[in-house]
Protein backbone atom coordinates (compact mmCIF):
# COMPACT_ATOMS: atom_id res chain seq x y z
CA UNK A 1 0.00 0.00 0.00
CA UNK A 2 1.31 3.42 -0.94
CA UNK A 3 2.66 5.75 1.70
CA UNK A 4 -0.12 8.18 0.84
CA UNK A 5 -2.52 6.27 3.05
CA UNK A 6 -3.62 8.51 5.88
CA UNK A 7 -5.92 8.18 8.78
CA UNK A 8 -8.44 10.99 8.45
CA UNK A 9 -10.41 10.85 11.66
CA UNK A 10 -9.21 14.27 12.82
CA UNK A 11 -9.64 15.74 9.34
CA UNK A 12 -13.13 14.36 9.12
CA UNK A 13 -14.06 15.83 12.47
CA UNK A 14 -12.69 19.21 11.43
CA UNK A 15 -14.30 19.24 8.00
CA UNK A 16 -17.69 18.14 9.08
CA UNK A 17 -20.07 20.72 10.34
CA UNK A 18 -23.24 20.09 12.24
CA UNK A 19 -26.13 19.55 9.84
CA UNK A 20 -29.23 21.24 11.26
CA UNK A 21 -31.54 20.22 8.41
CA UNK A 22 -32.34 16.59 7.94
CA UNK A 23 -34.91 17.29 5.25
CA UNK A 24 -34.66 18.50 1.68
CA UNK A 25 -37.60 19.80 -0.32
CA UNK A 26 -37.21 20.73 -3.98
CA UNK A 27 -39.88 22.51 -5.96
CA UNK A 28 -39.28 21.28 -9.50
CA UNK A 29 -40.96 23.95 -11.59
CA UNK A 30 -39.06 23.60 -14.87
CA UNK A 31 -39.27 21.02 -17.62
CA UNK A 32 -35.87 22.01 -19.02
CA UNK A 33 -33.15 19.37 -19.09
CA UNK A 34 -30.61 21.75 -17.54
CA UNK A 35 -32.90 22.14 -14.52
CA UNK A 36 -34.39 18.64 -14.31
CA UNK A 37 -30.87 17.20 -14.21
CA UNK A 38 -29.58 19.16 -11.18
CA UNK A 39 -32.95 18.63 -9.48
CA UNK A 40 -32.43 14.87 -9.69
CA UNK A 41 -28.73 15.09 -8.78
CA UNK A 42 -29.52 17.07 -5.63
CA UNK A 43 -32.52 14.89 -4.80
CA UNK A 44 -30.60 11.63 -5.01
CA UNK A 45 -27.66 13.11 -3.10
CA UNK A 46 -29.93 14.40 -0.33
CA UNK A 47 -31.41 10.94 0.07
CA UNK A 48 -27.93 9.38 -0.05
CA UNK A 49 -26.97 11.69 2.83
CA UNK A 50 -29.87 10.35 4.83
CA UNK A 51 -32.01 13.45 4.38
CA UNK A 52 -35.74 12.92 4.09
CA UNK A 53 -36.11 14.17 0.53
CA UNK A 54 -39.22 15.27 -1.31
CA UNK A 55 -39.49 16.70 -4.81
CA UNK A 56 -42.72 18.51 -5.74
CA UNK A 57 -43.25 18.65 -9.49
CA UNK A 58 -45.28 21.64 -10.55
CA UNK A 59 -46.09 23.51 -13.79
CA UNK A 60 -43.59 22.60 -16.52
CA UNK A 61 -41.84 20.32 -14.06
CA UNK A 62 -44.66 17.83 -14.46
CA UNK A 63 -44.17 17.05 -18.16
CA UNK A 64 -40.93 15.08 -17.58
CA UNK A 65 -42.95 12.69 -15.38
CA UNK A 66 -45.27 11.73 -18.23
CA UNK A 67 -44.77 8.17 -19.53
CA UNK A 68 -42.60 7.93 -22.62
CA UNK A 69 -45.27 6.34 -24.80
CA UNK A 70 -47.71 9.22 -24.24
CA UNK A 71 -47.58 11.46 -27.27
CA UNK A 72 -50.44 13.87 -26.63
CA UNK A 73 -51.91 14.54 -23.22
CA UNK A 74 -54.83 16.64 -22.07
CA UNK A 75 -58.60 16.52 -22.15
CA UNK A 76 -59.41 19.55 -24.29
CA UNK A 77 -57.86 21.12 -27.41
CA UNK A 78 -55.86 23.72 -25.45
CA UNK A 79 -54.26 21.11 -23.18
CA UNK A 80 -53.60 18.85 -26.17
CA UNK A 81 -52.05 21.76 -28.07
CA UNK A 82 -49.74 22.47 -25.11
CA UNK A 83 -48.50 18.89 -25.11
CA UNK A 84 -47.83 18.98 -28.86
CA UNK A 85 -45.77 22.17 -28.53
CA UNK A 86 -43.82 20.79 -25.60
CA UNK A 87 -43.68 17.02 -25.91
CA UNK A 88 -44.07 15.33 -22.53
CA UNK A 89 -41.69 12.65 -21.23
CA UNK A 90 -38.23 12.71 -19.74
CA UNK A 91 -36.60 11.66 -23.02
CA UNK A 92 -37.97 14.74 -24.76
CA UNK A 93 -37.05 17.50 -22.32
CA UNK A 94 -35.33 20.47 -23.93
CA UNK A 95 -32.44 22.64 -22.87
CA UNK A 96 -33.29 26.05 -21.41
CA UNK A 97 -30.68 27.56 -23.71
CA UNK A 98 -28.97 26.34 -26.88
CA UNK A 99 -31.70 23.80 -27.57
CA UNK A 100 -31.30 24.02 -31.38
CA UNK A 101 -34.37 21.90 -32.09
CA UNK A 102 -33.12 19.04 -29.94
CA UNK A 103 -29.47 19.03 -31.10
CA UNK A 104 -28.41 20.69 -27.82
CA UNK A 105 -29.93 18.04 -25.54
CA UNK A 106 -28.60 15.26 -27.80
CA UNK A 107 -25.08 16.69 -27.51
CA UNK A 108 -25.47 17.20 -23.77
CA UNK A 109 -26.57 13.58 -23.34
CA UNK A 110 -23.65 12.39 -25.47
CA UNK A 111 -21.22 14.41 -23.33
CA UNK A 112 -22.82 13.00 -20.20
CA UNK A 113 -22.43 9.44 -21.45
CA UNK A 114 -18.79 10.09 -22.37
CA UNK A 115 -18.12 11.47 -18.89
CA UNK A 116 -20.14 8.78 -17.10
CA UNK A 117 -22.68 11.23 -15.76
CA UNK A 118 -25.91 9.44 -14.92
CA UNK A 119 -28.80 10.26 -17.23
CA UNK A 120 -32.02 11.80 -15.84
CA UNK A 121 -33.71 8.44 -16.49
CA UNK A 122 -31.11 6.60 -14.36
CA UNK A 123 -31.30 9.27 -11.67
CA UNK A 124 -35.08 9.07 -11.35
CA UNK A 125 -34.83 5.30 -10.80
CA UNK A 126 -32.02 5.87 -8.30
CA UNK A 127 -34.14 8.51 -6.55
CA UNK A 128 -37.03 6.06 -6.17
CA UNK A 129 -34.69 3.38 -4.85
CA UNK A 130 -33.16 5.76 -2.29
CA UNK A 131 -36.63 6.70 -1.06
CA UNK A 132 -37.00 10.17 -2.55
CA UNK A 133 -40.68 11.11 -2.49
CA UNK A 134 -41.72 12.31 -5.95
CA UNK A 135 -44.94 14.26 -5.61
CA UNK A 136 -46.91 15.56 -8.61
CA UNK A 137 -48.85 18.78 -8.09
CA UNK A 138 -52.59 18.10 -8.31
CA UNK A 139 -53.47 21.58 -9.53
CA UNK A 140 -50.99 21.39 -12.42
CA UNK A 141 -52.34 17.97 -13.35
CA UNK A 142 -55.84 19.49 -13.58
CA UNK A 143 -54.52 22.52 -15.48
CA UNK A 144 -52.66 20.43 -18.05
CA UNK A 145 -55.24 17.67 -18.19
CA UNK A 146 -52.83 15.05 -16.88
CA UNK A 147 -54.13 11.97 -15.12
CA UNK A 148 -52.37 9.64 -12.68
CA UNK A 149 -52.20 6.93 -15.36
CA UNK A 150 -50.39 9.37 -17.74
CA UNK A 151 -47.50 9.62 -15.26
CA UNK A 152 -44.68 7.17 -14.57
CA UNK A 153 -44.94 4.61 -11.78
CA UNK A 154 -43.43 5.04 -8.34
CA UNK A 155 -44.79 8.53 -7.62
CA UNK A 156 -46.52 9.62 -4.43
CA UNK A 157 -50.19 10.58 -4.49
CA UNK A 158 -50.71 14.02 -6.07
CA UNK A 159 -50.83 16.82 -3.52
CA UNK A 160 -51.23 20.58 -3.24
CA UNK A 161 -49.25 23.64 -2.18
CA UNK A 162 -50.19 23.15 1.48
CA UNK A 163 -48.59 19.71 1.56
CA UNK A 164 -45.50 21.17 -0.12
CA UNK A 165 -45.20 24.02 2.38
CA UNK A 166 -45.87 21.87 5.45
CA UNK A 167 -43.16 19.50 4.21
CA UNK A 168 -40.86 22.51 3.63
CA UNK A 169 -41.27 24.03 7.11
CA UNK A 170 -38.26 22.35 8.67
CA UNK A 171 -36.36 21.58 5.49
CA UNK A 172 -33.82 23.05 3.14
CA UNK A 173 -35.96 24.24 0.25
CA UNK A 174 -34.88 24.76 -3.32
CA UNK A 175 -36.93 26.12 -6.20
CA UNK A 176 -35.47 24.87 -9.47
Amino acid at each position, binding site marked *: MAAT*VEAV*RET*TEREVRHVPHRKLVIMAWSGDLDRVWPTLILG*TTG*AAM*GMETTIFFTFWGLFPLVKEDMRITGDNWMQKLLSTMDRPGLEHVKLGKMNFAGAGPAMMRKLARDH*HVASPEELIELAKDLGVKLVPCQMTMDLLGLHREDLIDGLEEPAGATTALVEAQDAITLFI
Partner: protein
Amino acid sequence: MSATIARTLDMKGFACPLPIAKTAQAIRELAVGDLLEVLATDPGSVPDFAAWSGSTGHELVERSEEDGVFRFLIRKG
Protein backbone atom coordinates in the same frame (compact mmCIF):
# COMPACT_ATOMS: atom_id res chain seq x y z
CA MET B 1 -15.30 -4.88 14.98
CA SER B 2 -13.96 -6.68 11.96
CA ALA B 3 -11.03 -5.26 10.02
CA THR B 4 -11.84 -7.17 6.86
CA ILE B 5 -13.52 -5.39 4.01
CA ALA B 6 -17.08 -6.59 3.62
CA ARG B 7 -17.55 -5.16 0.14
CA THR B 8 -15.71 -3.17 -2.52
CA LEU B 9 -17.61 -0.74 -4.71
CA ASP B 10 -15.82 0.23 -7.91
CA MET B 11 -16.97 3.70 -9.01
CA LYS B 12 -13.92 4.46 -11.13
CA GLY B 13 -14.86 6.69 -14.05
CA PHE B 14 -18.21 7.70 -12.64
CA ALA B 15 -19.18 11.31 -11.95
CA CYS B 16 -21.22 13.01 -9.24
CA PRO B 17 -23.62 11.99 -7.77
CA LEU B 18 -23.08 8.31 -8.56
CA PRO B 19 -20.12 7.53 -6.23
CA ILE B 20 -22.06 8.84 -3.21
CA ALA B 21 -25.49 7.63 -4.30
CA LYS B 22 -24.25 4.10 -5.05
CA THR B 23 -22.33 4.09 -1.76
CA ALA B 24 -25.56 4.92 0.06
CA GLN B 25 -27.24 2.02 -1.74
CA ALA B 26 -24.39 -0.38 -1.00
CA ILE B 27 -24.09 0.49 2.69
CA ARG B 28 -27.72 -0.45 3.27
CA GLU B 29 -26.81 -4.10 2.65
CA LEU B 30 -24.05 -4.09 5.30
CA ALA B 31 -24.23 -4.56 9.06
CA VAL B 32 -23.21 -1.84 11.53
CA GLY B 33 -19.43 -1.93 11.93
CA ASP B 34 -18.82 -3.50 8.51
CA LEU B 35 -16.20 -1.93 6.26
CA LEU B 36 -17.03 -0.73 2.75
CA GLU B 37 -14.25 0.11 0.33
CA VAL B 38 -15.05 2.58 -2.46
CA LEU B 39 -12.75 3.26 -5.42
CA ALA B 40 -13.35 6.46 -7.40
CA THR B 41 -11.59 8.72 -9.87
CA ASP B 42 -13.82 11.80 -9.54
CA PRO B 43 -11.71 14.42 -7.67
CA GLY B 44 -14.96 15.89 -6.30
CA SER B 45 -15.48 12.66 -4.40
CA VAL B 46 -12.71 13.62 -1.94
CA PRO B 47 -14.58 16.51 -0.28
CA ASP B 48 -17.91 14.77 -0.96
CA PHE B 49 -17.03 11.61 0.97
CA ALA B 50 -15.78 13.66 3.94
CA ALA B 51 -19.02 15.67 3.96
CA TRP B 52 -21.17 12.61 3.42
CA SER B 53 -19.48 10.72 6.23
CA GLY B 54 -20.04 13.61 8.62
CA SER B 55 -23.70 13.98 7.85
CA THR B 56 -24.61 10.29 7.84
CA GLY B 57 -22.68 8.94 10.81
CA HIS B 58 -20.79 6.44 8.66
CA GLU B 59 -17.14 6.81 9.56
CA LEU B 60 -14.52 7.57 6.93
CA VAL B 61 -11.78 5.43 8.38
CA GLU B 62 -9.19 5.86 5.70
CA ARG B 63 -8.59 7.85 2.55
CA SER B 64 -5.78 7.33 0.10
CA GLU B 65 -4.83 7.98 -3.49
CA GLU B 66 -2.80 5.92 -5.89
CA ASP B 67 -2.36 6.66 -9.62
CA GLY B 68 -5.39 8.91 -9.70
CA VAL B 69 -7.64 6.42 -7.96
CA PHE B 70 -9.12 7.52 -4.66
CA ARG B 71 -9.81 4.84 -2.11
CA PHE B 72 -12.26 5.43 0.70
CA LEU B 73 -12.73 3.01 3.55
CA ILE B 74 -16.02 3.52 5.34
CA ARG B 75 -17.28 1.89 8.50
CA LYS B 76 -21.05 1.64 8.65
CA GLY B 77 -22.36 3.61 11.63
